[in-house]
C-alpha cells in the first residue's frame, strides 16, 4: 500500500528534494520576470537591438537542467535566457549585458544573443540557428577524451532541426557514443514557419531513429514529464551509452522577436496556451503535494520581483565599456 503510493508518486517528488523543487519554481519565476523586465526596459528604450523571449517555455528550460550536475555543460540558443537562468546565472550580470555594460556576462560585447556563463557550464547562447549543436558534440568529445564525466546538454528549436548541422552532429555523437543530450524545444514555429510547413516528419523525435538513438516527445510544460525524460537521457549519457534526443513540446507566448507581428498564428492559439501557464501549473502541483504552502509560493515570487528590481538597478549603475577597448579580446593576450 505504501509501496503502491510511491509507485504512483510523481517522478519529480521522488527525484528531487523539496528545496530543489522550491528552487525550480524560483528559477521559473526568475526567467519570467527577467524577460518581462527586459521587455519593459526595451520598450522604454533602455535596451537596444533585439531579443527573443522564452516566456511560456520556463518549465522546459528549468526542467531540462534539473537533472544536470553542477559542472555539466549546456549550449543554448538565440532564445537562451531561460537556459542561462536555469543553469544558475546571476540576473544582475544578465541585465548588465543587456544594457551593454562592462559588468555584463560578455562585458557588453555580446548582448542577448551571446549571453553565456562559462563558470556555471553555460557555453553560450548562439546567434546562428543550430550553431551550437556541433559545439555541444565537441564539448562531449572533450568530456569523453579527458574523462571529466561531464554530460553536455544541447538546446535547439524545432526550426533548427532542418539545418544540416543537426544531422551531421547527431550522426557523429551517435557514431562516437558521446555523452550529450539533445533537447529540441518544439514551440511549433521557427519564426513564422510552422513545423508542418518546414519539417517532413510528425514528431522531431522520430528523426532519432535515423541516428540509432532514443527519441522521445514529451510535454515540456509538464515538470514531471520533462524531468523524467531528461533524467533518463542524462543517465544514459553519464553511463557511456551515448546520446539521446528529447523533444520538449512547449510554446512561446511572445512574438519571435521584437519585429514579429504574429501574422502566422491566431490569437486563440496564443490565448489557449497562455491559459495553461506552465509556472502556475508547477506551482499548484507543488502546493497540492504539500511541498509549498500557498504563502510559500507567493513568497518565492515576491522575492524574485525584488531580485529583478535590484538587478536592473545594478545594470543601470554599472560602467559602460570604454570605446578605446573596442578591439580588446579579439585575440588572447599572451603574457610571456
Amino acid at each position, binding site marked *: 500500500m505504501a509501496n503502491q503510493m510511491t509507485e504512483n508518486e510523481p517522478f519529480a517528488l521522488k527525484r528531487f528534494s523539496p528545496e530543489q523543487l522550491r528552487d525550480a519554481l524560483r528559477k521559473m519565476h526568475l526567467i519570467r520576470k527577467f524577460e518581462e523586465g527586459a521587455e519593459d526596459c526595451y520598450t522604454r528604450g533602455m535596451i537596444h537591438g533585439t531579443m527573443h523571449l522564452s516566456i511560456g517555455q520556463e518549465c522546459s528550460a528549468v526542467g531540462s537542467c534539473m537533472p544536470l550536475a553542477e559542472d555539466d555543460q549546456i549550449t543554448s540558443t538565440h532564445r537562451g535566457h531561460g537556459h542561462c537562468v536555469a543553469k544558475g546565472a546571476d540576473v544582475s550580470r544578465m541585465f548588465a549585458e543587456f544594457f551593454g555594460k562592462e559588468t555584463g556576462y560578455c562585458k557588453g560585447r555580446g548582448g542577448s544573443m551571446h549571453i553565456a556563463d562559462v563558470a556555471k557550464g553555460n557555453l553560450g547562447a548562439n546567434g546562428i540557428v543550430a550553431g551550437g549543436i556541433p559545439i555541444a558534440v565537441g564539448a562531449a568529445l572533450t568530456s569523453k577524451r579527458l574523462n571529466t564525466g561531464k554530460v553536455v546538454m544541447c538546446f535547439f528549436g524545432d*526550426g533548427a532541426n532542418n539545418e544540416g548541422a543537426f544531422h551531421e552532429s547527431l550522426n557523429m555523437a551517435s557514431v562516437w557514443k558521446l555523452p550529450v543530450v539533445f533537447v529540441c524545444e518544439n514551440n511549433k514555429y521557427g519564426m513564422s514557419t510552422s513545423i508542418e510547413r518546414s519539417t517532413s516528419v510528425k514528431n522531431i523525435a522520430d528523426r532519432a531513429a535515423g541516428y540509432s538513438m532514443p527519441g522521445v516527445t514529451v510535454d515540456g510544460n509538464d515538470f514531471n514529464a520533462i524531468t523524467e525524460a531528461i533524467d533518463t537521457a542524462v543517465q544514459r549519457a553519464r553511463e557511456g551509452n551515448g546520446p539521446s534526443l528529447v523533444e520538449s513540446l512547449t510554446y512561446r507566448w511572445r512574438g519571435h522577436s521584437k519585429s514579429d507581428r504574429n501574422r*502566422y498564428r491566431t490569437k486563440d492559439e496564443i490565448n489557449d496556451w497562455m491559459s495553461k501557464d506552465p509556472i502556475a501549473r508547477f506551482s499548484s502541483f507543488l502546493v497540492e503535494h504539500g511541498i509549498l504552502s500557498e504563502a510559500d509560493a507567493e513568497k518565492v515570487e515576491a522575492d524574485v520581483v525584488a531580485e529583478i528590481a535590484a538587478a536592473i538597478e545594478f545594470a543601470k549603475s554599472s560602467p559602460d565599456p570604454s570605446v578605446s577597448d573596442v578591439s580588446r579580446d579579439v585575440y588572447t593576450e599572451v603574457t610571456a
Partner: protein
Amino acid sequence: MNALIQESTLDVVEMSYSEAIKDAMDIALGQDERVVLMGEDIGVYGGAFQVTGDLVHKYGEERVMDTPISELGGAGVAVGAALTGLRPIFEFQFSDFATLAMEQIVNQAAKVRYMLGGEVSVPLVMRFPAGSGTGAAAQHSQSLEAWLAHVPGLKVIQPTTPHDVKGMLLAALEDPDPVMIFEHKLLYKTKGMVPEGYYTVPIGQAAIRREGTDVTIVATSIMVHKSLAAAEELEKEGISAEVIDLRTIRPIDRDAVLKSVEKTSRLVCVYEGVKTLGIGAEISAMVAESHAFDFLDAPILRLGGSDNPIPYNPELEKASVPQVDDIVSNVARLVKGKI
C-alpha cells in the same frame, strides 16, 4: 542605354529602399512566370526586414516560398532551379548566414558554367541583408561582400539608393549569370524618387554622386551616404571632394575610378567591411598598379571596419565602422598633406 531612354519616360514616385526592392520583385513576378522568391519567412511574415511584404498574398506560396531553415540546401535548390529554367531570387535572412551556403554559391553557382565549358548558365539572384548598426552583434552584422567579389563567375552589387536597387535588381534578373546583391540594413528605410514600372540600371557602372577636384572618395553601400555628408563638411573647410558610388564591386568600374583619380590626384576608399582585405584594398591596389599611379600626390587612404567582430554595445558598434567625422578628419589630413 535602352533602359535609360525608357526610364526617362516613366513617372517617378517616392519610395523607401525596401519598397523599391519589393516593387522590382513585384514587376518581375508579374511579367515572368519563371521568377520565384525563396527564403526564410518571406511569406506571411513578409521577411525579417519586411522587404517581400505582402507579395505572398498576391502571388501565392508557390511563387513566394518560405524555405525551412536550411541555407545550404535552400541555396542549392535555387542553383538547381536556375540551372534548369527558373529565375529564383533567394533571400538570406542576414548575410551572415550565407557562411552556411558558400559551397553552393562558390563551388557550384559561380563555377558550373565554366566547368561545363559554357554549356549552361545560372541566372540566379541572391539578396544579402548586410552590415552593422542594428545592435544585433557579431553574428548578425557582418559585411562579407569582399569574399564574393573575390570569386570569378559571380557579379556582386551594392546599390545605395531606391532608384538603383530597383533598376539593378531588374538588371540582375536579365543577367544570365549569378548576381549577388548586398543590401545594407540601414538603407531599407531610406527614401528616394523611383520611376514607376520597368527599367534597369546597368551592373558594372559606378556613379559619380558629387563632383570635386581635390580628392576622390570611392565608397560603397552606406558609406556613400556618409561620404557625401562628409563632403559637405569638407567643403566648409574649402576641400572639394569627388564622391564615387562604386555600386558594383565585381566587376569594378575601373575607368570611372581612374579618371577621377587622374583629376584629383588623391584617393580615399571608404567601406564598412573589415579594412584588411575589404573592397578598399582592391580599389587601392587597382589604382596603384595603373597609369593613374603617376597622378597620385599622396598615399591612398582606406577607411574600413576595425579589426574586431561587431560588438553589441552601441558606442563600441559605432566605433567599429567609419563615421562621418572619421571621413572628414582623415580626408582633410590627407588633402592638407599631413599623411
